[in-house]
């Protein structure tokens, strides 16, 4: 079965979640990965969206973090101040997914600006929940497509800290921190280590034993495609 790089990325990220995880989910790739995990090997994984829905079980992939179906299928809906104080800050959520425009070798992320803060070349949406997700969950999982412009030696702006980043799943492979520096530990099928090096804006550390990610199974791909085909229009 053929599959795209984005599909491999979603599957590889989903595999990191277990039935014991309580997971803070943003929209986009993280939501795809978390919902895929729930439909395959981790049906009891608890999804928490920052809009206040705890234990949401959406039938469709939500387009926004505040979709009505998240509230309808949640175990509990709480206010946004309560979500950030009693649930995120209190350390009740073990995994947080983050995306970003830039990442540095230490897993620090930028989702604020490209260029100077006061007069940016590109004003990005900003950090949202990221600054405190990055310091409140036990394990941060980062998902972003690997390019030299995204994987940079030095961020234009540090939106969130990298200390709790445990894995970065890209469309090319998998990076994990080794002594604090993101190190290539896996490549997706058909990707060479040099491809990943070329897509990285710093001199990439590579583990001695780079795994090749198992390709998506038929079950995973079918679940992923059925999930994406029912994204709300």
């Amino acid at each position, binding site marked *: 079965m053929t599959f795209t790089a984005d599909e491999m990325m979603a599957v590889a990220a989903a595999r990191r979640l277990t039935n014991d995880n309580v997971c803070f989910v943003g929209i986009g790739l993280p939501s795809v990965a978390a919902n895929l995990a729930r439909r395959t090997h981790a049906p009891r994984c608890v999804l928490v969206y920052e809009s*206040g829905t705890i234990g949401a079980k959406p039938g469709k992939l939500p387009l926004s973090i505040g979709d009505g179906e998240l509230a309808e299928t949640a175990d509990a809906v709480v206010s946004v101040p309560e979500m950030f104080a009693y649930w995120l800050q209190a350390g009740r959520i073990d995994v947080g997914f983050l995306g970003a425009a830039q990442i540095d070798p230490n897993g620090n992320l930028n989702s604020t600006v490209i260029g100077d803060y006061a007069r940016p070349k590109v004003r990005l949406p900003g950090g949202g929940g990221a600054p405190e997700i990055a310091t409140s969950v036990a394990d941060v999982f980062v998902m972003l497509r690997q390019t030299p412009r995204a994987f940079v030696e030095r961020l234009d702006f540090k*939106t969130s800290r990298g200390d709790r980043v445990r894995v970065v799943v890209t469309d090319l492979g998998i990076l994990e921190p080794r002594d604090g520096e993101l190190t290539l530990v896996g490549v997706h099928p058909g990707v060479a280590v040099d491809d990943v090096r070329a897509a990285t804006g710093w001199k990439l550390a590579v583990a001695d034993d780079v795994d090749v990610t198992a390709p998506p199974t038929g079950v995973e791909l079918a679940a992923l495609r059925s999930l994406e085909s029912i994204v709300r229009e």
Partner: protein
Amino acid sequence: MADIVTLADAVRELVHDGDTVALEGFTHLIPNAAGHELIRQGLNDLTLVRMTPDVVYDQLIGMGAARKLVFSWGGNPGVGSLHRFRDAVEHDWPAPLALEEHSHAGMAAAYAAGAADLPFGLLRGYEGTDLVAHTRVGTVTCPFTGEELTAVPALRPDVGIIHAQQADRKGNVQLWGITGVQKETVLASSRSIVSVEEIVDELEPRPGAVVLPAWVIDAVAEVPGGARPSYAHGYYERDNEFYAAWDSISRDRDTFASWMREHVLGAVAA
């Protein structure tokens, strides 16, 4: 005690040039109609406050109503950038836009502090980020443990504006579904306006509902569809196509301006 009035009258009476105004909603129940009324009445020099400024804030900013934005995530959810917001920040068009940027956790704590009439909200946050150098945060030390914590200044908007599903004839308001930070917005603000889908004889208690008594609200206006293109749980769905379409409408200054003339400025006040 809430007066039941038209949205136009509520805005005319309660919102003034230069005010700090929060129109809140977390994807759900975004007070779009009220935002359009601010634009139609030509309000300007506003400090706009919102955790998640989206299309209606893009419109306010693109029309030059705002002097400053206090926010934590400014984008078109599920679509991408807000082009009018970007144009204002990147090119001062149509006017410079000052930013006070926070994290969601900081904004939420700041609204809660405002609702509780405390001068600051307390959290563990911002630490080790570049936000600290570009926003208003401070620190306090726990008198018991010595731990240093983050303080964010309380949000106390002049006017808080939200949209809800229902009010009764006395002006008591009920909203349900994802209720976000709307209670705090009303309670933190000096004045408040609530637009509602409908005014009913009696509010039927609902699971997950937030009820705001009439005596903490200044004006209630019946505006069916007042949250469109966002959604009102139990009334209508989110118009996801419009959010996607906004990307191209807003990308170009002229296209934006003519869309606003046709769909907002030319529209009849609710």
